[in-house]
Protein backbone atom coordinates (compact mmCIF):
# COMPACT_ATOMS: atom_id res chain seq x y z
CA UNK A 1 0.00 0.00 0.00
CA UNK A 2 1.36 3.39 -0.94
CA UNK A 3 1.27 6.58 1.11
CA UNK A 4 -1.48 7.84 -1.15
CA UNK A 5 -3.51 4.70 -0.54
CA UNK A 6 -2.89 5.05 3.18
CA UNK A 7 -4.27 8.57 3.08
CA UNK A 8 -7.23 7.32 1.06
CA UNK A 9 -7.82 4.71 3.75
CA UNK A 10 -7.79 7.47 6.36
CA UNK A 11 -10.28 9.59 4.46
CA UNK A 12 -12.51 6.73 3.34
CA UNK A 13 -12.65 4.52 6.42
CA UNK A 14 -11.64 6.81 9.27
CA UNK A 15 -15.15 7.96 10.04
CA UNK A 16 -16.53 4.43 9.71
CA UNK A 17 -14.08 2.95 12.16
CA UNK A 18 -14.54 5.87 14.52
CA UNK A 19 -18.33 5.53 14.53
CA UNK A 20 -18.10 1.81 15.14
CA UNK A 21 -15.73 2.25 18.07
CA UNK A 22 -17.56 5.27 19.45
CA UNK A 23 -20.90 3.48 19.46
CA UNK A 24 -19.32 0.42 21.00
CA UNK A 25 -17.34 2.11 23.75
CA UNK A 26 -19.36 5.33 24.28
CA UNK A 27 -16.29 7.43 25.03
CA UNK A 28 -15.20 10.09 22.57
CA UNK A 29 -11.62 10.38 23.76
CA UNK A 30 -11.00 6.66 24.03
CA UNK A 31 -12.58 6.12 20.62
CA UNK A 32 -10.30 8.75 19.15
CA UNK A 33 -7.27 7.17 20.82
CA UNK A 34 -8.21 3.71 19.58
CA UNK A 35 -8.63 4.86 15.99
CA UNK A 36 -5.39 6.82 16.18
CA UNK A 37 -3.58 3.72 17.47
CA UNK A 38 -5.16 1.64 14.71
CA UNK A 39 -3.92 3.92 11.97
CA UNK A 40 -0.53 4.15 13.64
CA UNK A 41 -0.30 0.37 13.46
CA UNK A 42 -1.41 0.48 9.85
CA UNK A 43 1.29 3.00 9.07
CA UNK A 44 3.92 0.80 10.70
CA UNK A 45 3.04 -2.08 8.38
CA UNK A 46 1.83 -0.02 5.46
CA UNK A 47 3.95 -1.89 2.95
CA UNK A 48 2.68 -5.30 4.03
CA UNK A 49 -1.05 -4.74 3.61
CA UNK A 50 -2.95 -4.63 0.37
CA UNK A 51 -5.36 -1.77 -0.07
CA UNK A 52 -8.22 -4.15 -0.85
CA UNK A 53 -7.98 -5.72 2.59
CA UNK A 54 -7.36 -2.59 4.55
CA UNK A 55 -10.95 -1.94 5.66
CA UNK A 56 -11.32 -5.36 7.23
CA UNK A 57 -7.84 -5.00 8.76
CA UNK A 58 -8.78 -1.63 10.26
CA UNK A 59 -11.99 -2.92 11.82
CA UNK A 60 -10.27 -6.03 13.15
CA UNK A 61 -7.41 -4.10 14.69
CA UNK A 62 -9.66 -1.43 16.12
CA UNK A 63 -12.02 -4.05 17.57
CA UNK A 64 -9.18 -5.95 19.24
CA UNK A 65 -7.75 -2.72 20.60
CA UNK A 66 -11.17 -1.77 21.93
CA UNK A 67 -11.54 -5.13 23.66
CA UNK A 68 -8.14 -4.60 25.30
CA UNK A 69 -9.22 -1.18 26.52
CA UNK A 70 -12.54 -2.48 27.81
CA UNK A 71 -10.87 -5.36 29.62
CA UNK A 72 -8.36 -3.00 31.12
CA UNK A 73 -11.21 -0.87 32.40
CA UNK A 74 -13.06 -3.96 33.63
CA UNK A 75 -16.10 -2.86 31.80
CA UNK A 76 -16.54 -5.93 29.68
CA UNK A 77 -19.92 -7.57 30.19
CA UNK A 78 -19.82 -11.33 29.97
CA UNK A 79 -21.98 -12.58 27.16
CA UNK A 80 -23.43 -15.38 29.28
CA UNK A 81 -24.36 -12.89 31.96
CA UNK A 82 -26.61 -11.04 29.59
CA UNK A 83 -30.29 -11.49 30.03
CA UNK A 84 -33.24 -9.78 28.52
CA UNK A 85 -34.14 -8.37 31.91
CA UNK A 86 -31.16 -6.03 31.73
CA UNK A 87 -33.21 -3.89 29.41
CA UNK A 88 -35.55 -1.50 31.06
CA UNK A 89 -37.75 1.29 29.95
CA UNK A 90 -36.62 4.88 30.31
CA UNK A 91 -37.57 8.18 28.80
CA UNK A 92 -39.35 7.91 25.50
CA UNK A 93 -38.40 9.40 22.20
CA UNK A 94 -40.14 9.69 18.93
CA UNK A 95 -37.00 9.16 16.87
CA UNK A 96 -36.77 5.43 16.24
CA UNK A 97 -33.08 5.53 15.35
CA UNK A 98 -32.28 7.42 18.52
CA UNK A 99 -34.21 4.96 20.65
CA UNK A 100 -32.48 2.07 18.94
CA UNK A 101 -29.08 3.57 19.68
CA UNK A 102 -30.07 4.07 23.29
CA UNK A 103 -31.18 0.47 23.46
CA UNK A 104 -27.93 -0.59 21.85
CA UNK A 105 -25.99 0.87 24.78
CA UNK A 106 -27.69 -1.62 27.06
CA UNK A 107 -26.55 -4.64 25.07
CA UNK A 108 -23.40 -6.56 25.91
CA UNK A 109 -20.30 -5.37 24.08
CA UNK A 110 -20.14 -8.34 21.73
CA UNK A 111 -23.77 -8.06 20.72
CA UNK A 112 -23.32 -4.36 20.19
CA UNK A 113 -20.28 -4.82 18.00
CA UNK A 114 -21.75 -7.48 15.73
CA UNK A 115 -24.96 -5.51 15.22
CA UNK A 116 -23.00 -2.34 14.46
CA UNK A 117 -20.83 -4.13 11.95
CA UNK A 118 -23.90 -5.65 10.36
CA UNK A 119 -26.02 -2.49 10.19
CA UNK A 120 -23.40 0.22 9.79
CA UNK A 121 -21.02 -1.51 7.43
CA UNK A 122 -23.17 -4.24 5.94
CA UNK A 123 -20.63 -6.95 6.62
CA UNK A 124 -21.59 -10.58 6.09
CA UNK A 125 -21.68 -13.01 8.98
CA UNK A 126 -18.42 -14.52 7.83
CA UNK A 127 -16.70 -11.13 7.65
CA UNK A 128 -18.01 -10.17 11.06
CA UNK A 129 -16.70 -13.45 12.36
CA UNK A 130 -13.26 -12.70 10.94
CA UNK A 131 -13.22 -9.27 12.52
CA UNK A 132 -14.44 -10.33 15.93
CA UNK A 133 -12.84 -13.75 16.05
CA UNK A 134 -16.18 -15.50 16.41
CA UNK A 135 -17.62 -18.36 14.42
CA UNK A 136 -20.29 -17.64 11.87
CA UNK A 137 -22.88 -19.43 13.99
CA UNK A 138 -21.95 -17.36 17.02
CA UNK A 139 -22.27 -14.18 14.99
CA UNK A 140 -25.74 -15.17 13.84
CA UNK A 141 -26.84 -16.04 17.34
CA UNK A 142 -25.58 -12.77 18.79
CA UNK A 143 -27.19 -10.74 16.05
CA UNK A 144 -30.55 -12.47 16.36
CA UNK A 145 -30.55 -12.23 20.14
CA UNK A 146 -29.54 -8.60 19.89
CA UNK A 147 -32.37 -7.85 17.51
CA UNK A 148 -34.87 -9.48 19.83
CA UNK A 149 -33.53 -7.43 22.73
CA UNK A 150 -33.79 -4.22 20.72
CA UNK A 151 -37.36 -5.04 19.75
CA UNK A 152 -38.31 -5.80 23.33
CA UNK A 153 -36.81 -2.49 24.37
CA UNK A 154 -38.94 -0.66 21.84
CA UNK A 155 -42.03 -2.41 23.08
CA UNK A 156 -41.21 -1.63 26.70
CA UNK A 157 -40.57 2.03 25.95
CA UNK A 158 -44.01 2.17 24.31
CA UNK A 159 -42.49 3.14 21.00
CA UNK A 160 -44.20 0.05 19.68
CA UNK A 161 -47.37 -1.25 21.21
Amino acid at each position, binding site marked *: MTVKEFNNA*VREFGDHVYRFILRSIKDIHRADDIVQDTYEKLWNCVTEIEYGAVKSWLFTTAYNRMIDVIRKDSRLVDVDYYEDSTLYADEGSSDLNEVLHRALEKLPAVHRSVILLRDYEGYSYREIGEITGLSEAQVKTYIFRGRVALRNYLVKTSVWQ
Partner: protein
Amino acid sequence: MAITEDMDSPRLTPPDDRMPSGSSLFRSPAELTDEQFDLLAAAWAEGALSGESLEELESVMAASAERRDRAGSFCNIRLVPCDESWPGMRSAIRLSPVQRRLRRSVIPALLAVAAMVVMIIYGPTVLKLKTINSGKTVTRSTMTVAEIQVLPPIVAPEKNPATHTPPAQVAQTPVAEENALPGLLAEKNAMQNLPAEIQNPDEITGFVRVQPLALARGYASVPSVAPEIIPAITSINIIDIQPAQILQEEKNWIIRTISFLASAVTGKEKNIDGYIIANGCITGINNAFGWDMELDRISNKSGDLVAVTFRSSLLSFTKPVNKTNP
Protein backbone atom coordinates in the same frame (compact mmCIF):
# COMPACT_ATOMS: atom_id res chain seq x y z
CA MET B 1 -30.16 -59.69 23.06
CA ALA B 2 -28.31 -62.26 21.03
CA ILE B 3 -24.65 -63.10 20.94
CA THR B 4 -23.21 -63.35 17.48
CA GLU B 5 -21.25 -66.30 16.40
CA ASP B 6 -18.10 -64.30 16.07
CA MET B 7 -16.79 -64.66 19.59
CA ASP B 8 -13.63 -62.77 18.85
CA SER B 9 -15.51 -59.49 18.68
CA PRO B 10 -18.93 -59.77 20.38
CA ARG B 11 -21.44 -56.90 19.65
CA LEU B 12 -24.78 -55.90 21.15
CA THR B 13 -27.74 -55.64 18.81
CA PRO B 14 -30.56 -53.22 19.87
CA PRO B 15 -33.96 -54.75 20.47
CA ASP B 16 -37.15 -53.56 18.78
CA ASP B 17 -38.67 -51.98 21.91
CA ARG B 18 -40.77 -48.78 21.33
CA MET B 19 -41.59 -45.94 23.72
CA PRO B 20 -45.33 -46.09 24.34
CA SER B 21 -45.94 -42.31 24.38
CA GLY B 22 -43.38 -41.27 21.78
CA SER B 23 -45.90 -39.67 19.48
CA SER B 24 -46.83 -37.14 22.16
CA LEU B 25 -43.45 -35.46 21.83
CA PHE B 26 -44.03 -34.34 18.29
CA ARG B 27 -44.47 -30.58 17.86
CA SER B 28 -45.97 -28.44 15.16
CA PRO B 29 -44.64 -25.01 14.12
CA ALA B 30 -47.66 -23.39 15.72
CA GLU B 31 -46.41 -24.56 19.10
CA LEU B 32 -43.29 -22.39 19.02
CA THR B 33 -43.05 -20.14 22.05
CA ASP B 34 -42.80 -16.38 21.59
CA GLU B 35 -39.09 -16.39 22.41
CA GLN B 36 -38.44 -19.12 19.86
CA PHE B 37 -40.60 -17.39 17.33
CA ASP B 38 -38.79 -14.08 17.89
CA LEU B 39 -35.42 -15.63 17.23
CA LEU B 40 -36.73 -17.22 14.05
CA ALA B 41 -38.39 -13.98 13.03
CA ALA B 42 -35.17 -12.06 13.61
CA ALA B 43 -33.36 -14.52 11.39
CA TRP B 44 -36.11 -14.25 8.82
CA ALA B 45 -35.86 -10.46 8.83
CA GLU B 46 -32.12 -10.80 8.29
CA GLY B 47 -32.73 -13.08 5.33
CA ALA B 48 -30.88 -15.87 7.06
CA LEU B 49 -33.61 -18.49 6.87
CA SER B 50 -33.91 -20.95 4.05
CA GLY B 51 -35.38 -24.31 3.23
CA GLU B 52 -37.60 -25.97 5.80
CA SER B 53 -36.97 -23.29 8.43
CA LEU B 54 -38.38 -20.64 6.13
CA GLU B 55 -41.37 -22.81 5.19
CA GLU B 56 -42.22 -23.53 8.81
CA LEU B 57 -42.04 -19.86 9.80
CA GLU B 58 -44.14 -18.81 6.85
CA SER B 59 -46.73 -21.40 7.80
CA VAL B 60 -46.89 -19.97 11.29
CA MET B 61 -47.24 -16.43 9.98
CA ALA B 62 -49.92 -17.51 7.59
CA ALA B 63 -51.87 -19.09 10.43
CA SER B 64 -51.63 -16.11 12.82
CA ALA B 65 -51.96 -12.43 11.93
CA GLU B 66 -50.52 -11.46 15.31
CA ARG B 67 -47.35 -13.41 14.68
CA ARG B 68 -47.13 -12.06 11.19
CA ASP B 69 -47.12 -8.52 12.59
CA ARG B 70 -44.67 -9.55 15.27
CA ALA B 71 -42.28 -10.90 12.66
CA GLY B 72 -42.76 -7.86 10.48
CA SER B 73 -41.65 -5.57 13.31
CA PHE B 74 -38.15 -7.01 13.11
CA CYS B 75 -37.76 -5.63 9.61
CA ASN B 76 -37.71 -2.11 11.03
CA ILE B 77 -34.96 -2.73 13.55
CA ARG B 78 -32.02 -1.37 11.61
CA LEU B 79 -29.47 1.05 12.96
CA VAL B 80 -28.67 4.00 10.73
CA PRO B 81 -25.19 5.47 11.16
CA CYS B 82 -25.12 8.90 12.73
CA ASP B 83 -22.99 11.63 11.22
CA GLU B 84 -20.15 11.60 13.72
CA SER B 85 -16.82 12.48 12.17
CA TRP B 86 -13.47 11.34 13.39
CA PRO B 87 -11.81 14.43 14.89
CA GLY B 88 -8.30 13.05 14.52
CA MET B 89 -8.50 12.37 10.80
CA ARG B 90 -6.43 15.37 9.79
CA SER B 91 -3.56 14.42 12.03
CA ALA B 92 -3.54 10.89 10.63
CA ILE B 93 -2.98 12.06 7.07
CA ARG B 94 0.63 11.41 6.09
CA LEU B 95 2.43 13.84 3.84
CA SER B 96 4.45 12.61 0.95
CA PRO B 97 8.09 13.78 0.88
CA VAL B 98 7.25 16.36 -1.79
CA GLN B 99 4.31 17.72 0.20
CA ARG B 100 6.40 17.79 3.37
CA ARG B 101 9.15 19.75 1.63
CA LEU B 102 6.58 22.10 0.16
CA ARG B 103 4.87 22.74 3.47
CA ARG B 104 8.04 23.19 5.50
CA SER B 105 10.16 25.27 3.18
CA VAL B 106 8.51 26.59 0.05
CA ILE B 107 5.30 27.94 1.55
CA PRO B 108 7.01 29.78 4.44
CA ALA B 109 9.52 31.22 2.00
CA LEU B 110 6.76 32.46 -0.29
CA LEU B 111 4.91 33.96 2.64
CA ALA B 112 8.06 35.71 3.80
CA VAL B 113 8.66 37.11 0.33
CA ALA B 114 5.06 38.28 0.12
CA ALA B 115 5.36 39.97 3.50
CA MET B 116 8.55 41.70 2.44
CA VAL B 117 6.94 42.90 -0.79
CA VAL B 118 3.99 44.28 1.13
CA MET B 119 6.31 46.03 3.56
CA ILE B 120 8.36 47.51 0.75
CA ILE B 121 5.32 48.72 -1.16
CA TYR B 122 3.13 49.95 1.66
CA GLY B 123 5.58 50.41 4.51
CA PRO B 124 6.67 54.00 3.83
CA THR B 125 3.10 55.11 3.08
CA VAL B 126 1.73 53.64 6.28
CA LEU B 127 4.51 55.17 8.33
CA LYS B 128 3.92 58.57 6.80
CA LEU B 129 0.23 58.38 7.62
CA LYS B 130 1.01 57.25 11.15
CA THR B 131 3.40 60.16 11.61
CA ILE B 132 0.88 62.72 10.42
CA ASN B 133 -2.07 61.36 12.34
CA SER B 134 0.06 60.97 15.48
CA GLY B 135 -1.69 58.00 16.92
CA LYS B 136 -5.14 58.34 18.44
CA THR B 137 -7.78 59.69 16.12
CA VAL B 138 -10.34 62.01 17.63
CA THR B 139 -13.40 63.08 15.73
CA ARG B 140 -16.25 65.38 16.61
CA SER B 141 -18.65 62.52 16.82
CA THR B 142 -16.47 60.56 19.20
CA MET B 143 -15.59 63.49 21.42
CA THR B 144 -17.52 63.52 24.67
CA VAL B 145 -17.77 65.91 27.49
CA ALA B 146 -16.25 63.32 29.78
CA GLU B 147 -12.99 63.66 27.92
CA ILE B 148 -12.73 67.29 28.94
CA GLN B 149 -11.56 67.56 32.51
CA VAL B 150 -12.58 70.66 34.35
CA LEU B 151 -11.23 70.96 37.84
CA PRO B 152 -13.05 73.00 40.45
CA PRO B 153 -11.75 76.50 41.08
CA ILE B 154 -8.71 76.62 43.27
CA VAL B 155 -6.84 79.39 44.90
CA ALA B 156 -5.27 81.51 42.25
CA PRO B 157 -1.54 81.74 42.68
CA GLU B 158 0.36 84.94 42.36
CA LYS B 159 0.65 86.08 38.85
CA ASN B 160 4.10 85.18 37.77
CA PRO B 161 4.98 85.74 34.18
CA ALA B 162 7.51 83.00 34.43
CA THR B 163 4.94 80.40 35.33
CA HIS B 164 1.74 81.81 33.86
CA THR B 165 2.06 81.88 30.20
CA PRO B 166 -0.77 83.58 28.37
CA PRO B 167 -2.69 81.37 26.05
CA ALA B 168 -1.64 83.29 23.09
CA GLN B 169 1.94 82.64 23.98
CA VAL B 170 1.20 79.01 24.66
CA ALA B 171 -0.36 78.74 21.29
CA GLN B 172 2.77 80.24 19.88
CA THR B 173 5.06 77.95 21.81
CA PRO B 174 8.08 77.66 19.63
CA VAL B 175 7.84 74.74 17.38
CA ALA B 176 10.47 74.49 14.81
CA GLU B 177 8.95 75.53 11.56
CA GLU B 178 10.85 72.84 9.76
CA ASN B 179 9.08 70.25 11.96
CA ALA B 180 5.68 71.78 11.52
CA LEU B 181 3.44 69.23 9.89
CA PRO B 182 0.04 69.92 8.38
CA GLY B 183 -1.75 68.51 11.39
CA LEU B 184 0.24 70.61 13.78
CA LEU B 185 -0.34 73.74 11.75
CA ALA B 186 -4.04 73.09 11.83
CA GLU B 187 -3.97 72.83 15.59
CA LYS B 188 -1.98 76.01 15.77
CA ASN B 189 -4.58 77.83 13.72
CA ALA B 190 -7.37 76.39 15.80
CA MET B 191 -5.65 77.68 18.91
CA GLN B 192 -5.92 81.16 17.60
CA ASN B 193 -9.67 80.72 17.28
CA LEU B 194 -10.21 79.96 20.94
CA PRO B 195 -13.28 81.35 22.69
CA ALA B 196 -13.11 84.90 23.90
CA GLU B 197 -13.02 83.82 27.54
CA ILE B 198 -9.76 82.06 26.92
CA GLN B 199 -8.26 84.58 24.57
CA ASN B 200 -8.88 87.42 27.00
CA PRO B 201 -7.54 86.22 30.33
CA ASP B 202 -8.27 89.51 32.09
CA GLU B 203 -12.00 88.76 32.00
CA ILE B 204 -11.64 85.31 33.45
CA THR B 205 -12.01 85.15 37.20
CA GLY B 206 -11.12 81.54 37.93
CA PHE B 207 -8.39 79.06 37.50
CA VAL B 208 -9.45 76.22 35.36
CA ARG B 209 -7.61 73.30 33.94
CA VAL B 210 -9.07 72.09 30.72
CA GLN B 211 -8.09 69.57 28.24
CA PRO B 212 -6.36 71.98 25.94
CA LEU B 213 -6.12 69.83 22.89
CA ALA B 214 -9.88 69.55 22.58
CA LEU B 215 -10.24 73.27 22.94
CA ALA B 216 -7.47 73.96 20.53
CA ARG B 217 -9.03 71.74 17.95
CA GLY B 218 -12.36 73.46 18.44
CA TYR B 219 -14.18 70.33 19.51
CA ALA B 220 -15.42 71.91 22.71
CA SER B 221 -15.50 75.22 24.43
CA VAL B 222 -15.28 76.10 28.07
CA PRO B 223 -18.78 77.62 28.33
CA SER B 224 -20.34 74.54 26.86
CA VAL B 225 -18.57 72.34 29.33
CA ALA B 226 -18.92 74.24 32.60
CA PRO B 227 -20.97 77.39 32.17
CA GLU B 228 -21.43 77.83 35.87
CA ILE B 229 -17.71 78.09 36.42
CA ILE B 230 -16.96 80.68 33.81
CA PRO B 231 -18.25 83.77 35.72
CA ALA B 232 -16.02 82.93 38.64
CA ILE B 233 -12.94 82.33 36.63
CA THR B 234 -10.18 84.79 37.39
CA SER B 235 -7.53 83.39 35.14
CA ILE B 236 -6.95 80.43 32.97
CA ASN B 237 -3.95 78.29 32.63
CA ILE B 238 -3.78 76.02 29.67
CA ILE B 239 -1.24 73.34 30.22
CA ASP B 240 -0.31 70.03 28.78
CA ILE B 241 -0.68 71.18 25.25
CA GLN B 242 0.95 68.40 23.40
CA PRO B 243 1.99 68.95 19.86
CA ALA B 244 1.31 66.29 17.32
CA GLN B 245 3.39 63.32 18.25
CA ILE B 246 6.07 62.55 15.79
CA LEU B 247 7.20 58.96 15.51
CA GLN B 248 10.66 58.63 16.79
CA GLU B 249 13.13 57.98 14.08
CA GLU B 250 15.59 55.90 16.04
CA LYS B 251 14.43 52.66 14.37
CA ASN B 252 14.58 51.71 10.76
CA TRP B 253 11.37 51.59 8.81
CA ILE B 254 11.19 47.81 8.53
CA ILE B 255 11.12 47.38 12.30
CA ARG B 256 8.67 50.25 12.59
CA THR B 257 6.47 48.53 10.01
CA ILE B 258 6.63 45.23 11.88
CA SER B 259 5.75 47.05 15.10
CA PHE B 260 2.85 48.74 13.33
CA LEU B 261 1.57 45.44 11.92
CA ALA B 262 1.93 43.73 15.28
CA SER B 263 0.00 46.55 16.92
CA ALA B 264 -2.70 46.36 14.25
CA VAL B 265 -3.06 42.59 14.64
CA THR B 266 -2.99 42.40 18.43
CA GLY B 267 -4.70 45.69 19.11
CA LYS B 268 -2.00 46.62 21.62
CA GLU B 269 0.96 48.87 21.34
CA LYS B 270 3.92 46.71 20.48
CA ASN B 271 7.46 47.88 20.78
CA ILE B 272 9.44 45.50 18.63
CA ASP B 273 13.16 45.59 18.26
CA GLY B 274 15.69 43.47 16.48
CA TYR B 275 16.14 41.12 19.43
CA ILE B 276 12.43 40.29 19.57
CA ILE B 277 12.38 39.54 15.84
CA ALA B 278 15.46 37.34 16.06
CA ASN B 279 14.13 35.53 19.12
CA GLY B 280 10.81 34.95 17.38
CA CYS B 281 12.56 33.48 14.36
CA ILE B 282 14.58 31.13 16.55
CA THR B 283 11.46 30.03 18.42
CA GLY B 284 9.72 29.35 15.13
CA ILE B 285 12.64 27.32 13.84
CA ASN B 286 12.74 25.34 17.10
CA ASN B 287 9.03 24.57 16.80
CA ALA B 288 9.26 23.64 13.13
CA PHE B 289 12.31 21.41 13.27
CA GLY B 290 12.41 20.37 16.90
CA TRP B 291 15.75 22.03 17.46
CA ASP B 292 16.89 23.55 20.72
CA MET B 293 18.42 26.96 20.12
CA GLU B 294 18.40 29.86 22.54
CA LEU B 295 18.99 33.56 22.21
CA ASP B 296 19.49 35.55 25.40
CA ARG B 297 20.13 39.21 25.92
CA ILE B 298 22.68 40.56 28.37
CA SER B 299 21.95 43.94 29.86
CA ASN B 300 23.94 46.22 32.11
CA LYS B 301 22.71 47.61 35.42
CA SER B 302 20.81 50.38 33.72
CA GLY B 303 18.98 47.87 31.58
CA ASP B 304 20.70 48.70 28.32
CA LEU B 305 21.41 45.84 25.98
CA VAL B 306 25.15 45.19 25.84
CA ALA B 307 25.39 41.75 24.24
CA VAL B 308 23.42 38.81 22.96
CA THR B 309 24.22 35.17 23.58
CA PHE B 310 23.35 32.41 21.15
CA ARG B 311 23.40 28.78 22.27
CA SER B 312 22.74 25.60 20.33
CA SER B 313 24.03 22.05 20.34
CA LEU B 314 26.52 22.87 17.61
CA LEU B 315 27.42 26.50 18.17
CA SER B 316 27.50 28.98 21.02
CA PHE B 317 28.77 32.54 21.01
CA THR B 318 28.31 35.91 22.64
CA LYS B 319 28.20 38.99 20.48
CA PRO B 320 28.62 42.45 21.98
CA VAL B 321 26.15 45.02 20.78
CA ASN B 322 27.68 48.31 19.72
CA LYS B 323 24.41 50.14 19.49
CA THR B 324 21.25 49.65 21.41
CA ASN B 325 19.01 50.25 18.47
CA PRO B 326 19.37 48.45 15.19
